[in-house]
């Protein structure tokens, strides 16, 4: 037997209590890694990035669900400093069942892939997309998930757009696929021309614009210029950098990071009390034993360290399990979570920083709940302990 073995045996002497405490902590750390990872996904620092630095987004001024006239594309393209303008429209698509939501945009293939260069598509597939009237391309991940093949006719339902005959199930030909450089951008792209012609609302409207500019320094000036161009029209717009737009979009969900932090704080405060109670009980039950160990010759420091080590083990072990299970769960649901977004966000996975902070938090929790029993152990007189 070693000191570590002794601490380990002490930890498991009340198996039910230890298991229940372990389970509480395991759930807490599972929540920590899960909610922590969600918070990272929703964090404003993770959206867009360098690729979006020279992009502006223009949408309807008062609500993103309002359309804007398609002619804005040509008008904005004329402005100095504007390189390319493309447009997207929220299609509200699903595959087979409404629950199988697909992030689906009718787009102009000729401009879309010029701006979104981080989406890698072969020339063959891009040409097919440009030339096929009812063409559609999808991220490789979606193609593999639904086992689609190039050439398949894919029925895509829409929650928003019916065709002129009232049918909401649209049929598109899968002409290719693309590979996003950045995970999380997982939209199915449809030929806008066909969509424009066939939808019951009629032609001439798009959801929002993405504008590539020649110099990121021009962004504020151009944004102001674009907004002022339509300020007195029936369709005023709001323009911001892509990252700012993404930030505003995510803000619609509320301050996720703050909410997650609040939940985690409450969870860990409760867990702190649970652990402190466990260690306090363990200490009280062992006062006489600690007296015996001191009598035999174990010094205050060693016994105090044993008590502290036990508390740290009590919190770190379930944290390790929580992180591992959390990683497994997030790997399983990661791609699904990203599909709910239509901006490039990282897929949900346990970041190294989240895993490390979990273990650091567990260690700190152990020190916090073990400190008082450890200190009491060192201060306890043998005579008092033996009479306890």
């Amino acid at each position, binding site marked *: 037997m070693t000191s570590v073995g002794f601490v380990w045996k002490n930890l498991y*002497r009340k198996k039910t209590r230890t298991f229940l405490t372990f389970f509480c902590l395991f759930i807490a750390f599972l929540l920590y890694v899960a909610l922590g990872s969600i918070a990272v996904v929703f964090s404003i620092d993770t959206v867009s990035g360098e690729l979006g630095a020279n992009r502006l987004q223009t949408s309807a001024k008062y609500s993103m669900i309002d359309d804007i006239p398609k002619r804005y594309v040509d008008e904005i393209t004329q402005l100095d400093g504007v390189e390319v303008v493309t447009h997207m429209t929220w299609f509200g698509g699903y595959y087979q069942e409404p629950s199988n939501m697909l992030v689906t945009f009718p787009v102009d293939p000729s401009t879309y892939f010029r701006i979104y260069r981080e989406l890698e598509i072969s020339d063959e597939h891009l040409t097919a997309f440009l030339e096929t009237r009812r063409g559609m391309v999808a991220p490789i991940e979606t193609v593999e998930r639904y086992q689609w093949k190039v050439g398949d006719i894919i029925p895509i339902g829409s929650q928003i757009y019916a065709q002129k005959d009232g049918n909401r199930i649209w049929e598109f030909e899968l002409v290719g696929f693309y590979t996003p450089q950045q995970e999380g951008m997982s939209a199915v792209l449809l030929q806008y021309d066909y969509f424009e012609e066939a939808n019951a609302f009629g032609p001439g409207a798009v959801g929002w614009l993405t504008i590539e500019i020649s110099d990121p320094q021009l962004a504020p000036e151009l944004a102001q210029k674009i907004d002022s161009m339509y300020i007195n029209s029936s369709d005023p717009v709001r323009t911001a950098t892509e990252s700012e737009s993404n930030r505003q979009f995510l803000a619609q969900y509320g301050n996720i990071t703050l909410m997650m932090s609040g939940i985690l704080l409450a969870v860990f405060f409760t867990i702190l009390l649970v652990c402190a109670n466990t260690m306090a009980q363990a200490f009280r039950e062992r006062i006489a034993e600690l007296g015996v160990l001191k*009598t035999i010759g174990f010094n205050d420091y060693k016994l105090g360290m044993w008590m502290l080590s036990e508390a740290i083990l009590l919190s770190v072990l379930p944290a390790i399990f929580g992180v591992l299970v959390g990683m497994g769960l997030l790997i399983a649901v990661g791609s699904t979570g990203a599909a709910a977004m239509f901006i490039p966000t990282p897929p949900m996975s346990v970041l190294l920083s989240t895993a490390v902070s979990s273990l650091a938090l567990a260690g700190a929790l152990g020190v916090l709940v073990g400190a008082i029993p450890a200190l009491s152990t060192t201060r306890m007189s*043998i005579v008092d302990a033996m009479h306890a």
Partner: protein
Amino acid sequence: MAFIELTRVVKNYEKGSEVVHVLQDLNLSLHEGDFLALMGPSGSGKSTLLNLIGGIDQPTAGSVLVDGANLGNMSGSQLAKWRSETIGFVFQFYNLLPFLTAERNVELPLLLTNLGGSQRKENALTALRTVSLEDRAKHKPGELSGGQQQRVAIARAIVADPKILVCDEPTGDLDRQSAQEILALLETLNERFGKTVIMVTHDPLAAEHAKTVLHLDKGVLVESGQAEVSA
């Protein structure tokens, strides 16, 4: 020079505003290899005297010298180390750790030494063999009788080969037969292995096994056998 020498020892406890005088100006000398039985009514100070000799309590006044060491001059950690090397303790209620096997309980004091795992195990089994319990090495205290548990406790007390065994009513919780076995074992340890045994007991029959019997009453030694006593 005496092996154990207590000089003008006073021990008081404070109980709220009241001061309880437990030991009063006590002098005691014991030689190496003695077997002392300390008797007296409850509250007479027997256990307190035992605690002072065992280095787990300090006198209010006076000096306690054991095997040349002045316990009053030692820090807490020095005393802990000294106890681990010099004293083996046997308690009335055995005080074994319930979640460890007999072998592990006996091995505990050896965790304070530099011995390796296999040597510790061997020494623990030797100690258990000495108390005739080697075959119960893998049993936990709850699986042993009172007498067997006390023998395991004695094995734990002798495993680090201390010079002195301090026994606080070692037969107080045992039936007559088990008590006799324990006393016979203590006698063997005293006579064959040369351990100095200091035993607190209420039982006159147990005290008969000692070479010296002293009586304490209200903190004062009132009767002596072979030990040199003055009050």
